[in-house]
């Protein structure tokens, strides 16, 4: 709601521009003010703006209360204290020092204001990935920052550097103010980062694990996470030989899947075909960390050897990922024809349309398939069709 011009503080700012005669003659709510103005005027019980009416204008009591609160208990919220959060829930101790809290909403205790990356930590991430050519996965583990965040930081710092080169205006004072208001995860060249920025091994809760299943198992049998996944996706139990193989070398079974995700076993037929739910050891972002811990448990004293094995595994994982990406890229290139006319600034990328059951559907009338097909109307121009883009290609 636009603030009413009943408030004397507000109207005061208008006064110099209004001649005194117009103020007295006008029937607006501008009150006649004493010549001195002070902030305390806002608290004073207000009279009606109509001179002959004794009715008090509505809402004034509430406005008074609001300004009373803003000048009283809420006054500390007006300006921030650098390096501290200044939320409604933070309070002052006996000595009058502000104790910062991470709860930003007094009623929602389930939301915390979490720390953001400090400038130093951001630069360190960029330095390790771009200059030292470390992999995103390795940097993520070292600095305890999510892999997606590492990638985003690299993108953003790259963009920042480009903007600096082009002499575009930056919002530096704004950035400084935000970093003073919000908790930050710091990084020190000598001591490294203090506590981890965030958990890096978050397991997304899978849709298949929602139902509670009663599944009787004999007590003599070892029922582990692999078995549980198979039960959730209604797959038959593993062969004994396979179980023994997995138990002998747990990392090999994990690496087989993580380095080649296409080899996941499927169950069901037709539309119901789905992949067997894998154990959490495989579905977490850093499966190699589990193998590392297992190695540490088996050989607690051979620190260097464990480290070597870990590095080898990490390298193997990265190589496999790289290879997979290259292969996919090649396949895509194969399907696409690039044409660039000599005097054109455009490059035309032509891809053959594949008409198959997968693309056009069983009856050949799939709405999402490309091309104009007989008997398949295009609803493109129809009323009510949403045209907001669903993705922006980089």
């Amino acid at each position: 709601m636009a603030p009413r011009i009943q408030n004397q503080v507000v109207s005061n700012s208008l006064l110099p521009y209004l001649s005194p005669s117009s103020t007295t003659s006008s029937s607006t709510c501008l009150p006649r003010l004493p010549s001195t103005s002070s902030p305390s005027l806002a608290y004073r019980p207000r009279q009606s703006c109509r001179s002959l009416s004794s009715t008090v204008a509505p809402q004034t009591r509430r406005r008074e209360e609001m300004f009373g609160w803003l000048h009283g208990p809420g006054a500390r919220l007006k300006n921030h204290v650098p390096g501290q959060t200044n939320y409604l829930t933070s309070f002052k101790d006996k000595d009058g020092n502000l104790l910062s809290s991470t709860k930003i909403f007094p009623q929602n205790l389930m939301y915390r204001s979490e720390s953001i990356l400090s400038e130093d930590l951001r630069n360190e991430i960029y330095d390790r990935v771009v200059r030292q050519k470390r992999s995103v996965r390795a940097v993520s583990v070292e600095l305890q920052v999510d892999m997606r965040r590492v990638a985003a930081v690299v993108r953003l710092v790259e963009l920042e550097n480009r903007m600096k080169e082009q002499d575009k205006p930056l919002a530096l004072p704004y950035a400084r103010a935000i970093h003073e208001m919000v908790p930050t995860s710091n990084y020190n060249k000598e001591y490294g980062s203090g506590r981890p920025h965030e958990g890096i091994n978050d397991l997304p809760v899978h849709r298949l694990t929602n139902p509670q299943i009663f599944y009787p198992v004999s007590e003599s049998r070892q029922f582990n996470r692999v078995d549980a996944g198979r039960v959730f996706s209604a797959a038959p139990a593993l062969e004994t030989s396979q179980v023994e193989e997995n138990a002998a070398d747990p990392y090999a079974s994990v690496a087989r899947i993580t380095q080649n995700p296409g080899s996941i076993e499927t169950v069901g037929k037709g539309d119901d075909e789905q992949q067997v739910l894998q154990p959490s050891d495989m579905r977490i972002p850093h499966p190699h960390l589990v193998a590392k811990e297992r190695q540490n448990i088996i050989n607690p004293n051979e620190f260097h050897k464990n480290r070597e094995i870990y590095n080898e595994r990490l390298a193997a994982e990265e190589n496999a990922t790289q290879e997979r990406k290259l292969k996919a890229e090649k396949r895509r290139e194969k399907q696409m024809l690039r044409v660039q006319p000599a005097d054109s600034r455009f490059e035309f990328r032509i891809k053959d349309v594949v008409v198959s059951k997968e693309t056009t559907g069983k009856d050949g009338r799939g709405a999402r398939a490309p091309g104009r097909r007989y008997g398949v109307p295009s609803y493109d121009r129809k009323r009510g069709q949403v045209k907001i883009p669903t993705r922006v290609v980089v």
Partner: protein
Amino acid sequence: MRNRATTKLNKPKVRQSWSKWNLYNLQRFKLPFAVYRTHFQQKWDAKSAARAYHGEQVSEKQWTGMFSPRIRSVMPMDARKLAQDDGSLKSAGRGSGLFKTEEDALKEEQKQIPYSQMTFAPLERRLDVAIFRAMFASSARQARQFVIHGAVTVNGKPMRHPSYLLNPGDLFQVEPERVMYATGAPKDKVDRREIRLANKEAEEAKEKEAEAAEEAEGEAAEEAKENSVENPRKTLKLLLSQAKEIMSTDKKTLPAKRKQELRGFQKAVRRVLSRSESSTILTDSLESQFSQLTLLLRAREADKKNKDMEETQEKGEEAEKPKSKPESSADDAEATETGQQQLRDNLSEAFAMATQNKEVDMSELTRDEVQVLKRALVQMRDNPIDHSKPYATPWRPRDYMSAFATIPRYLEVNHNICAAVYLRHPVARPGYSEVPSPFSDSVGTMAFTWYLRRR
């Protein structure tokens, strides 16, 4: 689209906004006492309160289409625990582990996943809401306006649909000027008055210039010479005191006073720098400006003894000369006017004279003082007084901004360039929900059931 996002005081609604009205409403927000309300009424209250905050700009029909009863959540996994047990320990016995202490059970109970707080998670995907969450706008409405007015790009391409749903990995950017305007304190009447005065001065100066252009250029050279003869030591002292005043974090110093000092400092630095040989120094990089400034004032750090000082200074001068020579020669080539060249010669002569004067050499600075001077310069460069800006300059955060300052984890924000990456969809985890919502658990649950009813 009419703005229905009013902040009333009689029937308070909490909004996605940083206004002080909203802050007041937020701290006193209360749902009607449930005992006197039917179950339907309770659901209605919860839903209407929650919707006034979450996606108030989205129509009810659109929102019901977006609502999803499936809520994303994650479980943080400990690699060590996964390595210790392949799951058979947990499923041992009758299916819930052989050994389970009461403590473990209590811990599990305390850390429930707040699913009901995630009711409005799909709205966080919207571009306008994401801009508000990244703290680029002071309200969701303003964020929406930025998008519509074309100040926002997604992945480098302009995007004018506030309802664009961000995909994981999308990078969105708002023009830094708009962000500074949205988050900065507004101009007050003193600022506005200063703009008027500055404009007036500029006009007068223009008129004067037109008159002065006819007069001889020799006079200008003389004036410049007078300026350069001004005692550098005094200037430096003045500069330092002003810089200290600016950088002081003392709360007693009034903002107006600090601003005055800053303005004086700016003027003084400009005056000193205008004595420099290079004509481009005023637009040069900060480093070169600083080195030029210290050179002009012959300020050096006091870590060396006086004996060494003279020698090193001479060396320093020699080292500086070849650096500055190509610059000046390039300038000379560009400048065709002989008057300017003459002026430059006069200046360099004056400086050469000043270097031989030994009294000036004693103007030493401690390292701290140099640092202070440098920092003040940096701040002046980053956060200048500029009346052409639509916000109060030097920029400062708007009032009550800190009470709303939070950045959720599903965004990675670079505030320097006002760009952010939407990393992933918001998720719930044990004891924590990622959707910033001012409402308690019960409101979330009630709202969830309200929308569930229509599925």
